[in-house]
């Protein structure tokens, strides 16, 4: 019973932080869909959220089947394994606690192999309630891009 309660609490907590919520949407856009190898990947994003929330941090995650098969080998990035192979992931960029004023996020693609990519862009939104207590909301959407000479 205890285990069930713990699981329930985790799921509930997760939903608060990262649930699909009608009030929150994210629309990322890759600025150059075909990127030259080694050139920076630039993307921007639009979002909607209840009043008071502002973007605070971002990160980029990829599931292994959604990136070139030799990505980890070529770049040396670590794969976070999952017992279901298709859920194994690579943290491309962990939380960066700075959102540029123009909302253009940039990441180096040095050493990234040529190929097609799908990655999840996560944006952490933050607000303060009436008691000045911090509230967080994480939203995510996929981006698609290609690296090719």
């Amino acid at each position, binding site marked *: 019973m205890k285990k069930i309660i713990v699981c329930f609490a985790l799921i509930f907590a997760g939903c608060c932080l990262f649930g699909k919520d009608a009030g929150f949407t994210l629309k990322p856009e890759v600025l150059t869909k075909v990127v030259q190898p080694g050139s920076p990947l630039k993307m921007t994003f639009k979002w909607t959220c209840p009043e008071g929330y502002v973007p605070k941090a971002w990160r980029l995650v990829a599931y292994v*089947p959604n990136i070139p098969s030799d990505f980890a080998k070529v770049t040396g990035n670590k794969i976070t394994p999952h017992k279901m192979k298709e859920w194994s992931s690579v943290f491309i960029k962990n939380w960066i606690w700075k959102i540029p004023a123009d909302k253009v996020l940039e990441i180096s693609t040095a050493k990234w192999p040529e190929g*097609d990519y799908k990655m999840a862009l996560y944006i952490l939104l933050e607000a303060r309630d009436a008691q000045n207590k911090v509230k967080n909301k994480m939203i995510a959407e996929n981006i*698609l891009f290609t690296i*090719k000479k």
Partner: protein
Amino acid sequence: MRRSMLKYMEKMKSGLFLLSALLSLTAVSAEMNFAEKAPVINGSGDDPVWKKCSWNSGFSIYKTHAVPKAETRFKLAYDRDNLYFLVEAIEPFMNKLSVKDKLLQRNSESFWMNDTVEILMVHDPALKFYHKVIVDSTGKFQEVYFGDDNTGRSVYTPFFQWKSYAVIKTKRYADRWTVECAVPIGSLDPGKNLKWRFNINRNRHAGKGMEISSWAKVKGSSHPAVYREFSLPKVNAAYFQFASDNISGKTSLNKAKQIVHEVSADLINLTGNFRIVQVKYELLDQMFRSHVSNEKQTHLQNGKFSRVKIPLTNIKNGKYFLSISYWSPAGTLLKQTLIPTVIHYQPIVINLFRPAYRNNIYATMPDKTIEAEIALDGIQTEMVNVSLKDQNGKALFSRKYSGKALPAKVSFPGKDLADGMYFLEVAAGKEHKRSIEIRKLPYQPGEVWLDAQGVTHVDGKRYLPYGWFIFQASDPKTEAFNSQLNYGIGARNLESFHRNLTNYANVGMKSIVFPYQEFNGKHEWTIFAHSTRVGSLRPEQKAHLEKYIPEMKKHPSILAWYFADEPESRGGNNPQWFVQTHELMQKLDPYHPNLMLNWGISGMQQFYEGCDILIPDCYIGYRADGTTEKPRWAISDWMKAAANLGKPAWIVPQVFLWGNAAPTFDDYRAEVYQALIHNCKGFQLYNFAESRLHSSLTIAPDAVGMELKQIKDLVLENTIPGAVTVETPEGAEHFQAGLKYWKGDYVLITVNTSMKNIKADFTVKGNVPGTLYVLGEKRSVKLKNGKFSDHFGPAETHVYLTSRKTSDSVEDLFSVRKRVAEMKANRKKPDNKVALGEIDHFRIYRDWEHGKRPAHVAEIKGSSDLGSWFTIHMYKMSTFYFLFDGVTDHSSDFMIWGPAWNDRKPWIEITLPKEETISKVVLYTLVSKNGKARLTDAGVSYHNGKEFVKLKTVSGRKGNRIEITFPAVKAKKIRLDGFKLTPGEPRKILTEIEVY
């Protein structure tokens, strides 16, 4: 560049041309340069990549290899997406260039009659197909796909159903013209293994007389085996590995009253990587002009599929090519397919469910209900009247539906209707009316019809055709076989035509024959000559069919009409000729379906409208090392292509040598079951005569046929879509599996199409029992929550059944394999001094006859050889060496020796590799069903260095084995003579000779 060209011309004039050509020939090392930057295609050839490349020259005239009067040279380059060609054609008579611009269609076979340059591109290591772009001096070009015509002669059939997406520009100068061209690699259907070859041909008409030259030393325009090989190391074949499947389209009217054709197709990613793909669907007219297109982006992981549905809006009814093309985000063409498509919008939709075949109600159909779904598309009306009317317009049954209630199913009883013509008529208000014709037919003995699944019914019973090509009524027929397909057109009259069918019927075989019988005793067509099938069905052909088909169809053993044999390779056979003939034949003979045989998917796509059933051949081409010419799963691809065209399909499995090794028992079994997984409804094996050369093919077709007899009803059913999923290791991704159900029983058919030992994990949906029994393997597997695993040997097939009794009712597979091995081993008896045993590459007998014989092989010759079509025309050799092959009682007719008709004193002479002590000769003949042996007397002599000395003569022998023993002698040369043939029996008398 221009200056260098002028210098070049001067060289020609000063007589140094020959030397120059020779130098260029010795220096021919056409490097395939990698273009770091793609050239701008404008005909100029002034891009950096071209400056880096050297010219390739040294063209020669076809066949004679003489030096042409006007030289041609070219450069080649490539990048990872495209092939680049720059061709320069020197032309002293630029004002006389042949340009029949307005006359030439995209698919005109006369395109080469313009002054043209041909760019030939080959990448298939087996040379089964290649592509050609022909460009004239105005920049007009033609795209041709060539497929090997499946006759083993390296002859190629052109198909004009290929769109290259090439960018081509030409430029004309005072003394030459140039072609610059970029061809996307993705348009060439690149496989996983690429072996590149290129060539350039030039068709010159501007000078005096025609001058046809080529860079490679060719015999004709289509000779890919001699094209120069190139290495393109930076082309990644895996990048292009996509498949397109389950293509369907639905035509309707949208709210704006525009015709919409919604296309759906599965895109399958086999590239090994995650991919983003721009999917483009387009309708092209017969000249490849785009009428409408639409696109959508999709993305998919490796090994996954994505079903992409895209509407094409605002189109007109008509015939089109549906172009399906896939593009990378960077604009690289990844794959393209063209499919002939008919758009036919109808405001009133009548989907006739019953009767399901040819709109005919047959006397032996258990269900004679007329059932249809009625719908309106793009129109609205308050009331719809549906009625069944007779020929006089009298309504026999009527139903009224509110327009809002549609679509609705309507059914009328057909059981008590008199035989005759009826019309299912739908009237939507006063404006719209549509009717379809339904025939109720009187009974004809042996009548054949298909049900909604395409299952053949004969006299109302479900029937699985399993028969032979090239089977004589006198050949040994076994229980497994029920039909034969006959090429015969030599009947003198209707009576002999029917008598021949009766001969087969007497041994339990139904017949598939050409409807084009001319009844003149000749074995070639006049009225129906292939050259007459290039346009419409001719009046004399129509009249001939109208005269004879009503009589020919009466024979109760006709199973189907053999409509065409690979018409795509018969010199311009027109698909529309077959469409018209098919329409006529349906009226003249509603009782037998029309079969269309094509050797490939392109052929099926061209000719499918002219038949009821597609029966492609798909010869895998097995090699001794286990590799194959076509992928082993090509059978599945062929069947799926037929299904995509909306036709029931049978197949012609490979039961002869094609490649360099005969199919094994497991190869053959895999072909049959793979076809069944994809809803094959019949088999005609090619061919009985040649199958007898191989132990595996003497046994396997019969063994598998006996399996099919036990599970006929199960395998006739369509595979349940999505009922089974399979996980296989890498390298076995083309594993095939399908689940079928019939009256409480299931069959799960599984085929390993790889040559690896693998473990496959199955998940089966539905109420499948927990234990499945493996057909012919005396074992079972247990399912847990619908899952189980099993092991597969290379190319191995497992057939799982719910009935243990049925699974044990056939010969054990190990026993079959053992029989094959034993038969093969027994064909070479240890002490027989002339035994050859089984030789797959038996065509080598021809070389042996011409003296190119290994030292261990005895020489055999004779006074004459009756021969047969196979030995005389196909193999171009005599029958003699078949007498050493170890086949005694199951020889095919062409493997049996007989003396020529005018040979009154026949003899056979054998020269042993070395002098041997011999004391026995055994001759094998055949005994007819009447008990008479074909040969009764024979004698043996040996050569003593001066003359032949008789050793023994035997006479009055009655069996098939004539043993002649004599006191041992040392001999190198022996002679057989004194043959006495039994009057009234076939003249082919000897199947085997053994010397001890």
